[in-house]
């Protein structure tokens, strides 16, 4: 199993996409299940396009949330993506 690193290119796997409906809140639809996204979850998932690296995502969110300490953003993004990877929701290319 590949491990996540700053240089990994996270990419949503086939069958995983963000919900278009706002009715039930922020939701990631996955094969025969859903994941409820909280906090910056949606902003992270939106960026899992196989182009951006984990580092890129952290940098973009640091710009978007200047009040939050960058180290904390890095930890949160990495932990969250690692969890998504373990659930088989993203590939790390």
């Amino acid at each position, binding site marked *: *199993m*590949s491990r996540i690193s700053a240089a990994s290119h996270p990419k949503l*796997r*086939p*069958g*995983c*996409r963000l*919900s*278009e*409906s706002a*009715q*039930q809140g922020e*939701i990631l*639809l996955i*094969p*025969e299940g*859903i994941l409820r996204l909280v906090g910056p979850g949606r902003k992270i998932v939106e960026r899992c396009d196989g182009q951006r690296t984990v580092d890129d995502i952290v940098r973009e969110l640091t710009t978007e949330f200047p009040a939050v300490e960058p180290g904390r953003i890095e930890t949160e993004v990495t932990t969250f993506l690692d969890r998504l*990877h*373990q*659930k*088989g929701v993203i590939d*790390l290319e």
Partner: protein
Amino acid sequence: MTVPAPLSLIAEVTHRCPLHCVYCSNPLEMQARECELPTEAWTKVFNSAAELGVLQLHLTGGEPLARPDLTALVTAGRKAELYVNLITSGIGLSEERLAGLVGVGLDHIQLSFQDAQEDAANEIAGARAHARKLALAREIKKHRLALTVNLVVHRQNLSRLEEMIAMAEELAADRLEIAHVQYYGWALRNRDALLPTRAQWERSLEVITAARERLKGSMRVDFVGPDYYARYPKACMGGWGQSVVLIDPAGRALPCHAAAVIPGLRFDNVQQRGLRWIWEQSSAFQKFRGEDWMPEPCKSCDRRTLDFGGCRCQAMLLAGDAAATDPVCTLSPMHGIVEAAVESVNGNARADWVYRIDPPSA
């Protein structure tokens, strides 16, 4: 009491099926082709479901491919902004038809396998289907469509569980669902031939736990155990009328696949009543929603918010009372019924089975 919005719509678009699996979850009394809802009626159902908050549409049957309008149904589901999942045996899915479904935005396919060995698989299915399924799984992956391999396991195939998991890996499934047979419908009728022995059940748990660990990150492994061996019942459907609504081929709305076995419930039809009304107010969906209906020991049990007293249909089928504690629960006063079934299987040789038949034509 506030009623939560449902998350999933299970659309049983037909009861017709080319397979005759001995554990089919369809009711013994099936709906004939002539009663099936037309495309426009299903389209309306999908739109109402999305308005109600449903996110995922599971097209199932019978075999949904038996519907010539399946591509139109998938299109309608996506237009309603639903995540569309096709639950299929794969029989009837040509390369052209698959490409068409992918083209209109099908999100995911769940393809069932009966075994890893061709002869054994075909015997359970009562049809020569296994080789076609293998070829189809490869075609699905070529389209980069998300694939779940569904393995229904039971006494006759559990000894080949590792082989079956290896087959799913070889097919590069995105997700693997290993489900022990649940005893309703045809499966209950064939229970004595299907219920695993205790040793088999324990071994299957070890195999699955190891596979899950090994496949982390490449293939999600979901598992449904045989509740006859559980200490507490399953949280059936996430609770009655809590997150799932099922529409049968004729348009009747039910809280689950088996609810028709409960006498005295009236299942309203989406052709006569709006789906929102059915979900929020119809008597069938209210019947076992929440905790008011619960008997002891459920009523005062700490687990009532975890498993909701178990399965109402199983309580009906085993205890003869849909409002009883699910007899698989070790706290149920009727648990002896389940113990007897388990005991008889652990001392017995194979029994014969009855194949699922197709719904009658009018």
